[in-house]
């Protein structure tokens, strides 16, 4: 498609392979249609000589009905142009009717009730409830520059006038300002994300604005490797004050470690009260080896002795990717690394321990990325294999003389 000039493009929301391009073809207003996602196009000329297209809209339920708007010079003077076809462009009908004779800047068709068509022309907004047969002026304020129908709630209409930003919740019959003190000068276009009721307005030289119509916040849930979450990873919209529980679900052989992101901690499920956009990520790590025990042994020769705390555990076999095990000495709640062994080993000798010493150990597996798993203590907790004998004490009771 190389001939002509093309100004606007519309896609049928109900059938995205159907493309409608408005422009000028052979000196006339024209619509160029593709029914195959742009692989091929067919030109449909509109009987509007020396015209320029500014808007194209289709009936999403039957896109052989096409509306095209703009302006043209049929007699040497500028006139507003608004045409409709119901046969994919073979026959066009001028439906401007009572609309002001000014360039048509925007057209929208109600996605639910396609008999409702709205047109922005000359800064005024017009509404037809009979597919363009007649029009009513529903302009909320003079000098409208853009408008948009919420495709999921068609009665909800947004429009910009001067510095103000307006919203109608009854199909355009009444309007309220939602500018909330912001000046939005010369809005060029409006769009929205219905799922989170986010409205965007972009201006000519004044920046881009957005407005969240309800206190809906994005809750982003993610999971690290070796597990998932319930609800599953994704972005969810929740209203202000809404609560939800997110459960971390580790794979076999792994454990939930903690939450990272905007919230932290180890609670599972994680209870969230939504008050802002929030992102959390569930982190997982290897489960602790089971059967962790410690026994005191002595290596003795004729003249010397060395005491050894023998740590043993069951190797993790149900999970691939275990690279080894790390052993820690627990000192008042802090972990001091003692050493590590490879994955094929299930014992560790802590040599040279005191004969009467009391020791506490912790054990964790680590994976090939070096990420350490859940830490475990021996079954007996503190290891006191050989305790110092209790000193003999005098009994508290004595026989009275």
């Amino acid at each position, binding site marked *: 498609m190389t001939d002509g000039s093309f100004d606007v493009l519309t896609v049928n929301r109900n059938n995205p392979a159907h493309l409608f391009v408005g422009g000028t073809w052979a000196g006339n207003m024209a619509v160029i249609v593709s029914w195959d996602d742009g692989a091929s196009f067919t030109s449909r000329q509109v009987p509007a000589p020396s015209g320029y297209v500014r808007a194209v809209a289709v009936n999403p339920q039957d896109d052989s009905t096409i509306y095209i708007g703009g302006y043209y010079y049929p007699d040497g003077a500028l006139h507003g142009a608004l045409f409709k076809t119901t046969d994919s462009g073979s026959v066009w009908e001028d439906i401007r009717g009572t609309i002001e004779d000014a360039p048509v800047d925007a057209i929208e068709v109600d996605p639910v009730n396609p008999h409702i068509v709205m047109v922005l022309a000359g800064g005024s907004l017009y509404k037809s409830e009979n597919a363009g047969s007649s029009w009513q002026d529903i302009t909320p304020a003079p000098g409208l520059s853009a408008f948009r129908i919420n495709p999921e709630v068609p009665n909800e209409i947004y429009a910009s006038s001067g510095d103000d930003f307006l919203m109608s919740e009854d199909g355009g019959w009444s309007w309220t300002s939602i500018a909330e003190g912001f000046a939005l000068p010369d809005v060029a276009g409006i769009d929205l994300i219905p799922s989170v009721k986010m409205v965007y307005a972009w201006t000519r030289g004044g920046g881009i604005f957005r407005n969240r119509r309800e206190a809906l916040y994005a809750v982003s849930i993610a999971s690290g490797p070796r597990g998932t979450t319930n609800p599953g990873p994704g972005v969810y919209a929740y209203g202000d004050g809404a609560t939800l529980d997110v459960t971390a679900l580790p794979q076999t052989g792994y454990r939930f470690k903690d939450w990272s992101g905007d919230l932290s901690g180890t609670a599972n499920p994680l209870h969230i009260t939504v008050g802002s956009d929030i992102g959390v990520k569930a982190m997982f790590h290897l489960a602790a080896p089971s059967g962790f025990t410690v026994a005191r*042994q*002595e*290596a*003795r*020769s*004729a*003249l*010397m*002795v*060395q005491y*050894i705390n023998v740590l043993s555990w069951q190797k993790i076999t149900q999970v691939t990717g275990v690279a080894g095990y790390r052993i820690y000495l627990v000192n008042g709640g802090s972990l001091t690394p003692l050493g590590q062994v490879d994955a094929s080993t299930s014992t560790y*000798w802590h040599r040279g321990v*005191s*004969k009467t010493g009391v020791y506490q150990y912790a054990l964790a597996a680590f994976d090939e990325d070096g990420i350490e798993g859940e830490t475990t203590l021996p079954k007996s907790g503190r290891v006191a294999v050989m305790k110092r004998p209790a000193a003999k004490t005098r009994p508290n009771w004595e026989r009275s003389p």
Partner: protein
Amino acid sequence: MSKRLIAAISVLTVLGLAGPAWSSSISLELRAGYHVPASAAFRDVYKGGPAFAGQLEVRLTKTLSLWAGAEYFGKTGKLTFTGEETKIRIIPLTAGLKAQLDSKSLCPYLAAGAGYFLYKEENIIGTADGSVFGFLGQAGLLFKATKFLYLDLYARYSAGRTKAAGPAILAAELGGFQGGLGLIIGF
């Protein structure tokens, strides 16, 4: 004539020049025996093993003599639990008195003395070395092989106890039972 036969004749010639041991004022004994440590803990690690000794004896009276000598016991064993290698070397320097019956062919005797035990043990735990005083007692029978050569069939018990030092050095008994055979040459 083989070299071995020449060597044997040479030794017998020297021994012949030495004269009868029984009546000699000085004699030399070379002894080999099997040492069984007295300590069960010692036996757990090293078990028993050969011991060797050399002894010089000076006759004081017809039935009493003074002797002094040195022994050697060296063994490699395994640490308990770990099975790692450990080595020990014990060298008792000994001296004492010996009383014997004067007989033509068979001579029983009793001996007693003091020992100064030098020892050294090495393994992964570390090194323990030092010395300790002890005692020993011995009984035996002397057999007359030739008029200058006697055999000594003996049994002895020695005792020498080390002291503990620090958490890794144990008190240990170095002595034990020993039985063996000696060759006495009189001069």
